[in-house]
């Protein structure tokens, strides 16, 4: 049986994490969750992860950029999707992409189905 792809969902808004979790479970992913940057980095160091979906701005000092750096270091083959509810300049989005992000998504999501499908396609192009 095909091994499930593993996704790590990171956002300080628990409801958002929960909504994304439901979607990814339906898409056949194994889901890990974190609600702040440092727990996320711990998981990235310890677990095999195929896809990281991470809010760019989070409280307590560790934000999306730091998580991205950790992903590059410990899980370099995984994909990184940055999500943000803040206004992001083109430069800051470009910076994330240059540093290893595969996709940038704005909140609110215009369509939850499309957005999660797009993210899933990064790891399973034949889906």
């Amino acid at each position, binding site marked *: 049986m095909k091994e499930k792809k593993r996704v790590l969902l990171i956002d300080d*808004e628990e*409801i*958002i994490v929960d*909504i994304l979790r439901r979607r990814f479970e339906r898409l056949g992913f194994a889901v890990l969750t974190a609600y702040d940057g440092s727990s996320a980095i711990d998981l990235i160091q310890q677990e095999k992860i195929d896809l990281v979906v991470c809010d760019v701005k989070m*409280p307590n000092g560790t934000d999306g950029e730091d998580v991205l750096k950790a992903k590059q270091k410990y899980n370099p083959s995984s994909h990184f999707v940055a999500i943000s*509810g*803040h206004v992001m300049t083109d430069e800051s989005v470009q910076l994330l992409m240059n540093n290893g992000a595969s996709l940038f998504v704005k*909140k*609110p999501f215009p369509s*939850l189905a499309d957005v999660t499908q797009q993210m899933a396609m990064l790891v399973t192009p034949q889906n």
Partner: protein
Amino acid sequence: MTKKDLLHAVPAGRRQQSAATDHPVTEIPSAVELDDIIGVLQTKVASLTELLNQKDLQLRAARTQLAQVGKLATLGTLGAGVAHELNNPLTVISAEADELLDGIKQGFRDDDFTVMSASNIKKCAERMRLIIDHIRQYTRKDEEPTGTRLDVNSIVKDSLMLLENQLRNSGISIKLALAEHLPAIWGHANKLESVFQNLISNARDAFDETDKNQRKELTIQTSLVNQEIVVKVSDNGCGIPDEVQAHIFDPFFTTKEVGRGTGLGMSIARSNVEEHKGTISLESSPESGTEFVIRLPLERRNLRNN
């Protein structure tokens, strides 16, 4: 000295000679002429008084307008924060609605999920309603010129409402030490709120200069001391240089780059505090950070007549 005294003191038509030069130095007017002069002076004084009254009215109107501009300016600076505050619940509403719709189309929903999604939507809609309501109240011109009874602790909490998430996302921890059972004071909630918001957002900006890994703390404390309500807003940031401290309440004084900040915030804050017959002062050093102290006296109807 009355007009009558003046008239009696001066004999009619007398000229005075100067002892040294023989030139007449002072022509003393007659009683009638003096009468006229006094009349003219009185008319002049009356019209100057009238002019002063008009100017005073204009000044009050300008002051109200400035306060309104200040409010809108503060709202502008809060704008980014407001957009974010509204964006979060909106994201949940949109995503949960998608869940409900897709669930129905694809048949993966059950009653428990439906109830959960709908409840989340309701909770977020309520949060947005509170935020929008708050903004409306804040920008409305004060309709109660004589003010209302206020609980300073509630105003402190309200002032955090539009800034909380921004502060958290900047890694700033907020500590509230609010005295229980503070007596009510008389005043304008919006004006006091804008004072606290101004101090809080200045503290947030001050922390921008701070190293990301350093613990950032904002503390707001309220207490009753000597018949005054004392509100202290303090941060453990980098402090304010002495030369800036000297000008901090001056209108249009700002240390921010062009386009960021109007320089009106602190002068309007002081004006608002003074309208409540209060005082605002600060202490600041690079070692211990900055502390603003606002004192508001307790007397009933302590607003200056507006």
